[in-house]
């Protein structure tokens, strides 16, 4: 028995175990708790890399929880999978990998950043629960479990957003996020109920196989689309995002970004794998494209006028999610038309997938840098900052890398993914590319604003005592900076090995379905 077969289960078991043990580390003092925090984070990151390389080598993996064997999806005499099934294709493995990297960076950063606060063992437990929920959403092959993991990650993140409970704003942000998320989760549950009442299955692969295009399916699709677009922060359902991202402790925000990307993952899993070619009309792809355009433009125009560093960067998240929605929307539009797919659809998908990894890395780094500014100066307001370049040179360099990447300056990775999206959306309609480019210009403008106000200018007297942030925070930021530089310097490698398999897996509905039912042949099913 090869233990690597159990990777999908370990991906959930390790952070869950970490969360359950975390409160006990309170008895061992600060050192033990930090060691546990880092150890578990490193372990699940290593597991994520192993999982990703295994899926890359062997194609979609399945894992049957509690079964006689990990690959017996259909015990003899049963035609649909009834056990708890996990399924990981290249797209899921890609999402797990970058979620793990973002969570690792957030964890390393938090060790120093949260050092002066009490209640940290609960913080660690909630952090790991949130990570478990995120991994669960990405590895599950079953819609009901998708809902369960969505709830786990949401509930854990409410607690983390409200961690600084002496701040009224943090409580307000958490409450707003809770209302929006609960509504979204109920809509997901309702959509699952619609599909279950129609087909008597909740398994994703089986649904993808049997689904037809009717009223029930349309209703379910609209519910999924609304709820998951809400969870990933698309305009007009974005109002929770700036609050929650700006108020959560910086390390948490870094992981929270990856968590909201898991909702985006769910959205595209539904659209591409379940509905796929049955999507029939171009209405849904166009809805996604228009949501993307709106998010891009409204997000960035709200961002330019913000004075708080955290809120400014958080509004950029809205606009960056717009890019991904645009890319995937264009890809979805081309799905089912082989010529359009080869022409621009696949480029758009690659752009969207590449933008997910780029966004998670540089946005995480930006939030960590904003957290570092707050840690050093005690201020969130840009108008009060200035001249920090001499005081915090390392933070400045790291911030500069992230800002250049998000603004899409060549040769940084943001440039590559944005170029792919411009190119492909131009083929659909030039106005889409125009919107995307204007957004990019405004993005650059607002990051020049932060950089200029916070780091440049004469030194301020009140910041004379400001020192560079502690080493652990710099290490956390460096993890992400190294990822950004790696993706920037080797765009061809990342496109071929990281992005393309994920984009192909998204298009490839048959092998996702096949992975469950092919196992039937060996397991003696049907």
């Amino acid at each position, binding site marked *: *028995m090869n233990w690597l077969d*159990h990777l999908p*289960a*370990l991906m959930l*078991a390790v952070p*869950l*175990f970490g969360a*359950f*043990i975390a*409160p*006990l580390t*309170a008895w061992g003092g600060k050192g033990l708790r930090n060691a546990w925090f880092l150890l578990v984070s490193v372990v699940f990151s290593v597991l994520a890399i192993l999982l990703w390389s295994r899926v890359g080598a062997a194609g979609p993996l399945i*894992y*049957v*929880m*509690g*079964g*006689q*064997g*990990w690959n017996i999806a259909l015990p003899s005499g049963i035609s649909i999978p009834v056990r*708890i099934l996990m399924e990981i294709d290249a797209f899921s493995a890609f999402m797990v990998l970058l979620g793990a990297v973002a969570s690792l960076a957030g964890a390393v950063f938090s060790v120093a950043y949260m050092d*002066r*606060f*009490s*209640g940290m063992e609960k913080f660690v437990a909630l952090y790991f629960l949130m990570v478990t929920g995120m991994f669960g959403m990405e590895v599950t092959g079953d819609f009901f479990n998708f809902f369960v993991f969505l709830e786990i990650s949401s509930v854990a993140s409410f607690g983390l957003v409200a*961690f*600084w*409970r*002496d*701040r009224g704003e943090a409580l307000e942000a958490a409450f707003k996020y809770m209302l929006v998320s609960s509504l979204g989760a109920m809509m997901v549950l309702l959509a699952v109920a619609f599909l279950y009442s129609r087909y008597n299955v909740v398994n994703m692969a089986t649904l993808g196989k049997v689904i037809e295009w009717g009223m029930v399916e349309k209703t379910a699709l609209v519910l999924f689309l609304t709820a998951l677009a809400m969870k990933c922060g698309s305009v007009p359902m974005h109002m929770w995002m700036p609050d929650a991202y700006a108020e959560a402790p910086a390390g948490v925000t870094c992981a929270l970004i990856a968590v909201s990307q898991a909702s985006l993952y769910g959205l595209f899993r539904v659209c591409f794998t379940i509905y796929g070619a049955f999507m029939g009309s171009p209405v849904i792809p166009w809805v996604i494209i228009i949501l993307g355009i709106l998010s891009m433009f409204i997000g960035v125009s709200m961002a330019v006028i913000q004075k708080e560093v955290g809120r400014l960067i958080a509004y950029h998240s809205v606009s960056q999610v717009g890019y991904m929605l645009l890319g995937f929307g264009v890809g979805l539009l081309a799905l089912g038309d082989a010529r359009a797919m080869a022409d621009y659809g696949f480029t758009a998908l690659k752009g969207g997938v590449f933008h997910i990894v780029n966004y998670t890395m540089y946005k995480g780094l930006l939030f960590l840098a904003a957290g570092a500014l707050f840690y050093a100066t005690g201020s969130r307001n840009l108008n009060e900052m200035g001249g920090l370049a001499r005081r915090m040179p390392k933070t400045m360099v790291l911030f500069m890398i992230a800002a250049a990447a998000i603004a899409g300056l060549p040769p940084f990775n943001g440039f590559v993914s944005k170029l792919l999206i411009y190119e492909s959306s131009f083929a659909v309609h030039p106005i889409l590319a125009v919107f995307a480019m204007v957004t990019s210009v405004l993005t650059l403008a607002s990051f020049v604003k932060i950089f200029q106000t916070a780091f440049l200018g004469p030194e301020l007297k009140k910041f004379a005592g400001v020192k560079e942030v502690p080493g652990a925070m710099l290490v956390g930021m460096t993890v992400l900076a190294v990822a950004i530089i790696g993706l920037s310097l080797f765009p061809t490698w990342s496109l071929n090995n990281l992005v393309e398999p994920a984009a192909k897996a998204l298009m490839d509905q048959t092998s996702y379905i096949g992975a469950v039912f092919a196992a039937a042949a060996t397991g003696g099913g049907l």
Partner: protein
Amino acid sequence: MNPLSVVARTVCNLFAWFLAIFGIYVIVHGHLTPGGGFQGGAVVATFMAFLLVAHGGEKMQSWVRKDRFTLMECFGLTLFISAGLLGMSKTFFFNFLAKAGGVFGGVLPIGPNAGALNTSGTIALMNLSVGIEVVGGLSMILLYMFSAAHPQEPMGREESGHDR
């Protein structure tokens, strides 16, 4: 919250134990009768609610220690996930105790029968662990709800923020 009259307190003292026993029954028979770890655990936690209502908050604070409940919570959850991990020789959450003859390893004859307690393998074990976790968690929630409803009565060394 003030203590109730001596009559109410005596009745609550007595009936709290019945509730606890009934809750434990629901947990232990989780695999045979309706209910299970969560439901039974919630019933056992009403033990705390009864005493909290009858005796008032301050007295309860001096009687119980919250870190015991944290310990219970962690123990239950760890037992749960360990039961999953021990099945790893086949798959995660594989029922390795069922029909093995040992703890919860009994075998039932096929056909209508009353069921036996010593069956079902890890299902019973997981009911137990969820029960322990829910008792700890819900009792703690009740205590915290009390301290939130009466912020003027400080509870332990908790502070409004997390600053040290």
